[in-house]
């Protein structure tokens, strides 16, 4: 199996994502240019910083089209936090056009709620998904975000979380999965998601 490619455009700490995969025994390396994707078995896109800067950095590194191509080719992709939000068409954060893989918008939580939505919250799956195999239904996951994804087509929404509104916290279709929460900061259940990703989506495809 080739290494897991963690998209890194140098705007923040992704060490814990890498450590989580390494802890599970899977080699993972940071990738900041399209050519480095060649030998990779999967792409993990955690996103860093705010949406406008993130999209600008992706474009500056020439990574936006290679990510779209990777997904269109049916290869395993895991978006995390901002990496989920950037799959949509557009984000209200800085009025930013995003990757346009999932039709819909990213919206800010309404006033009156504490923002960021920070801490441990649960995820209600719409139907069982291999990423959650063996993960207890009552598990909590660590969130920290001020915006949430609202896909136009509800079939992209594989799991929801309640914070003022019910929002999409888990996106899944074919080779694409994405979580609004941070698996690498969600203790044992979070590590199980990364493990399931490699076992169910990466290896089976290889």
């Amino acid at each position: 199996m080739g290494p897991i490619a963690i998209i890194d455009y140098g705007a923040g700490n992704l060490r814990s994502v890498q450590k989580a995969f390494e802890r599970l025994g899977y080699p993972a390396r940071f990738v900041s240019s399209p050519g480095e994707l060649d030998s990779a078995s999967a792409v993990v896109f955690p996103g860093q910083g705010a949406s406008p800067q993130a999209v600008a950095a992706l474009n500056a590194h020439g990574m936006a089209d290679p990510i779209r191509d990777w997904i269109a080719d049916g290869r395993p992709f895991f978006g995390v936090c901002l990496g989920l939000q950037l799959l949509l068409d557009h984000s209200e954060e800085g009025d930013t056009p995003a990757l346009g893989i999932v039709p819909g918008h990213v919206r800010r939580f309404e006033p009156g709620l504490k923002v960021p939505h920070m801490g441990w919250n649960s995820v209600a799956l719409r139907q069982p998904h291999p990423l959650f195999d063996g993960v207890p239904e009552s598990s909590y996951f660590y969130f920290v975000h001020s915006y949430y994804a609202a896909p136009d087509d509800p079939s992209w929404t594989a799991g929801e979380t309640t914070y003022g509104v019910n929002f999409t916290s888990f996106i899944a279709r074919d080779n694409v999965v994405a979580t609004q929460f941070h698996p690498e900061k969600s203790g044992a259940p979070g590590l199980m998601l990364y493990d399931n990703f490699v076992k169910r989506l990466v290896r089976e495809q290889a």
Partner: protein
Amino acid sequence: MLTKRIIPCLDVTGGRVVKGASFVNLRDAGDPVELAAFYDREGADELVFLDITASSDGRDTIIDVVEHVSEQVFIPLTVGGGVRTVEDVRKLLNAGADKVSMNTAAVLNPDAFAAATAAFGNQCLVIAIDARRIAPDSPAADPSLLADGHPGKGALAVGPGSRWEVYIHGGRTPTGIDAVRWAEYTAELGAGEVLLTSMDADGHQDGYDLELTRAVADAVPIPVIASGGAGCIEHLAQAVTDGHADAALAASIFHYGQHVIADVKRSLAAQGIPTREVH
């Protein structure tokens, strides 16, 4: 439901945890990695590491601590103590911290705090506030350590309605800044969270300053961690029920025995407050 968080605080100097959990069956109770893993197993929702190194020489040891802990423990880590510049924040985040707190430096140089939130995102920056009650007969606050034009000499200054004052330098130096207004102002600068310590309650184990906690938690649009004064399980529950805090932080209470965190969560659950069960 978003759950209320219970957060142990570990004081670190020279790469070692001091005031550590000597009761625990740990091979080395001063080892940050071992202690962090223990608290993770016990159900801690996050960990706060406070670098209490007095001199500037030994500061890089906290970087090593964060690197080693983040390789082993997969829950959020906040690191604070002596953080002054954007570069300090960057080093800690790159070492594996999820959040970095600033306290004295944010007061003396609010621009540095704002620059850090802009560089790394609101969610990475915690404003740590040490607040002390203002006695009714106390002399007027002295903001002389603040630069001219500093908001603490204007809109944020302690006034007739003020009840708590911000202290810096580990609680030794009064600033003349109203604590509630400072919390609101730093949230506007981009803080993602407030770590609020009552200097009056800290160390007494008589409970948090619930009035202070509630005043700040109700005033700011960001989460608030209550700190200072926890002496028993009920105190932590009170911080979130009566104090309206989003999280409760404590140090010494967690050193008394095992399962304290689980007991706190049971107490909260019995009052209908959502908490994270650990499997």
